[in-house]
């Protein structure tokens, strides 16, 4: 869904444009969002049932405390390394199971996207653009730095709402 819709079909009216985008939204919602959320809920379920979530919570608590987050929030960051939709899904699942509150999820939202599944991006963003391979490590580190800094930034922003 790039700008090609606008370029190739200048005569579409507003209603057509809305329907076209909405159809795309339905496809994304059912084929990407829903599977991602189900996967995330199952991952959290597995972690809960096995007691691993509690363990992660305890082990990661001192690190995540730097950002004012409970240890369980580490699962959001780790998942976002592989999938943004998964990261959001895990955050939502932790919210509905009361491990994270609304403010903590809000703080994590930009971080999930700034992290931006680097595992995929090596092939996509970096590979396609043909960027110098000796800069790969720097670019991927920048994603992590951005994500971690943004949590503090969001904490600051939240003070105004």
């Amino acid at each position, binding site marked *: 869904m790039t700008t090609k819709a606008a370029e190739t079909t200048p005569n579409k009216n507003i209603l057509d444009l809305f329907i076209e985008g909405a159809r795309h939204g*339905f496809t*994304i919602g059912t084929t990407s969002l829903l599977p991602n*959320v189900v996967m995330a809920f199952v991952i959290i379920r597995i972690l809960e049932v096995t007691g691993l979530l509690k363990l992660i919570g305890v082990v990661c608590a001192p690190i995540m405390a730097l950002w004012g987050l409970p240890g369980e929030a580490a699962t959001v960051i780790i998942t976002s390394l592989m999938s943004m939709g998964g990261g*959001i899904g895990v955050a939502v699942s932790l919210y509905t199971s009361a491990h994270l509150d609304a403010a903590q999820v809000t703080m994590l939202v930009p971080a999930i996207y700034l992290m931006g599944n680097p595992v995929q991006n090596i092939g996509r*963003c970096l590979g396609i*653009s043909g960027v110098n391979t000796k800069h790969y490590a720097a*670019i991927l580190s920048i994603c992590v730095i951005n994500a971690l800094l943004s949590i503090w930034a969001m904490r600051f922003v939240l003070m105004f709402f």
Partner: protein
Amino acid sequence: MKETNNSTLQVPWTGYLAFFIAILLFSGIFSSSDGWLKVFDFNVLNGSFGKIEGVEKAFTFRGANGSGARDGFLFAFELIPAVVLALGLVNVIDGLGGLKAAQKLMTPILKPLLGVPGVAALANIANMQSTDAAAGMVKELVDTGEITDEERSVIISYQTSASAFLTNYFSSGAAVFSFMLVPIIVPIIVMLIFKIIGANLMRLYLKTVLKKTSPGGIHHDN
């Protein structure tokens, strides 16, 4: 792509209007207004599900205390209208020239902030919606000699972090729109700021660390 010059880019007035309305819709400015103005709020347009009437109180169809795949499925089901609405609106805004207006308005800002030629603006704007298309444009700019290898690294640092953030945020991010404590537009602004910070970290890295080890690496052909 390279001939797309910002000064010759024609943006119809509807583009600016669409861009302006987009900002209103997702900024939540009118979310708590009482009158008709609240029509300009995404969450107002998204509405709410009806409650199932019970004897004591009303229930949502999702119920409470669910878990696992079944709870996830019903939760995702609840989110789909927001994604349908959001991407419908984004497509209207795009179709009316709203993103072109954003490009025109952002080009003079991005150029000094990223320290790369203005010709890269189109690729950076495309990156709001598509990872691959934008990365492809960047490769083309290098191949045609419009930008150097190092400028490509700076641009890709900008693009990789939060790539395609509009599309991704308005699809999966819709999951948190209803309970997030800040207006929908705030995370977008935060992401944009950090993308710019990331690009500048790359500039700093190229200037300090790499200049010492590899002096002649500017025209590196891939």
